[in-house]
């Protein structure tokens, strides 16, 4: 297994944290992971990307990812932006945070309303729904190798107490709801 994932979001939405949590979770399943943040300056609110590799063998390469197998879109407004599909492999998957089912024919489409899930669990900072844990749940489900127990462990390691529990609920809810 060798899967490359690219995450699209806005600076401050936690896409780097989400990518790191994805690979922490696959590591708990005895896979190897690599999280590659954007190489440069980040700006809050601007479109940014981050990426990750998941493999059943040690990952040696350090180049950036140009032809991902999976694209995860954290902001519903980015769905029809050209760059989010750029290089996506034929037969690749798109996981999108969206209320509806956008019209995408070319690729396998998976939808999760991560914004609603975040709001329901009180994950709002400065008026922004914090969707990274919900997206972690959705991506993990589509990867198909991560257990709910591993997700709980990874999220609990980052956030303790009530905040940790609310993040775990969001993660698992998205894991169940993504379709």
């Amino acid at each position, binding site marked *: 297994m060798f899967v490359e994932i690219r995450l699209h979001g806005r600076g401050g939405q936690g896409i780097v944290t989400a990518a790191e949590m994805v690979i922490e979770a696959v590591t708990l399943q005895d896979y190897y*992971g690599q999280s590659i943040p954007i*190489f440069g300056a980040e700006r809050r609110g601007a479109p940014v990307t981050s990426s990750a590799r998941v493999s059943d063998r040690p990952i040696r390469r*350090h180049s950036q990812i140009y032809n991902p197998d999976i694209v995860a879109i954290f902001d519903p407004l980015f769905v029809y932006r050209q760059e989010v599909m750029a290089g996506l492999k034929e037969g690749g998957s798109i996981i999108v945070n969206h209320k509806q089912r956008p019209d995408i024919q070319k690729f396998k489409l998976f939808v999760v309303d991560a914004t609603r899930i975040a709001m329901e669990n009180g994950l709002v900072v400065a008026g922004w729904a914090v969707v990274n844990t919900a997206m972690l749940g959705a991506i993990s489900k589509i990867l198909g190798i991560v257990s709910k127990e591993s997700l709980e462990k990874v999220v609990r390691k980052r956030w303790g107490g009530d905040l940790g529990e609310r993040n775990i609920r969001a993660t698992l809810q998205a894991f169940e709801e993504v379709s």
Partner: protein
Amino acid sequence: MILTGNHAVSYGVKAARAEVVAAYPITPQTQIIEKLAELIAKGEMNARYIRVESEHSAMTACISAEACGARAFTATSSHGLAYMSEMVFWAGLGRFPVTMAVVTRTLAPPWSIWNEHTDILAQRDSGWIMMMCESAQEAYDTAIQAFRIAEDERVLQPVMYGLDSFSLSHTAENVDLLDQGVVDGYLPRLDPSKLPVYIDPDRPITFGNLLGPDRMMEFRHLIKEAFDRAERVIDEAAAEYSKIAGRPQTGLFENYRCSDAEVVAVATGASSGDVKDAVDGLRDKGVKAGMIRLKTIRPFPGEEIKEAIGGVKVVATIDRDYSFGFGGILGRELSAYLSGDVFRYIAGLGGRDLTIEDFEGIINGALQRAEEGKGDAEEVWWGLKEVE
């Protein structure tokens, strides 16, 4: 554990029980010293963190700490390293066994924070042992081995090791950490009595006198002899570490599938894994390719590499650095040891990404140039765009 290359260094320095950390922040190195400051503040690491106003002072503080018998570490990058340079030479020529992580970054102008190896290589004549790391795991392992090599009585020279900016410094990957007891067994406490310069209040002596021309060459020759012995010490440090860690380690250089190779690529740093993946891909297509990964750049293992690949028909060197008026530094240096054609490639300057396809292209290109009977006089700037 999942760690960025930067944090892998921090945890390696903690495991090595560094006693003094003096550093000044600079992108993309800052995470290393932030994590160390955090570990020290939380009491998880027993060391003194000295805040300084510049890299020049950071290295001065490290030299002073070593002179008092304390294990010292710093980290920097690019302009910070250039600014520190005077004291980098002082540490090397004064034989203070400091260790330093250098996150390799392009020197300006034009302004850049992205990857290039010219910054670290510009310090190559400073009397430091120099290494380059391939992965976050190797960054952790090297942070520990560096102190052992530096403090070995046969060496007693400082050690710096490079991490590629962003592609290694900020990429998070699997890292296995060693138990503290295991590291303690591998790396005993620094014995100040064996240091060339040790300031002992009970035994006052003066340092730093003017030395006339009648004695300077002899001082330089002592360092030359230390570097001659260092090759063996580096290999021993790697061999013993591989035993305690249960993972193979690279001392001077790594020989990847070269034994029957017809074409060998030579590279260093975080792109080395991409080169290996390219070598595997070419082998699947019937091209007998191999790779030499330079782990240690000073002392330069030219004779050993010559022994390993002296019979190989085509060698392609890949430099992510440049010495104007001379060429790619590592390619030029290796050419001095090899008798056959060495095809020199300059690639990835200023952080331009290099992929497996690039390395396949370079290896195939060198093969083709050799078949066409083209000599190795011309270096190739890989992927150079037309300037309007």
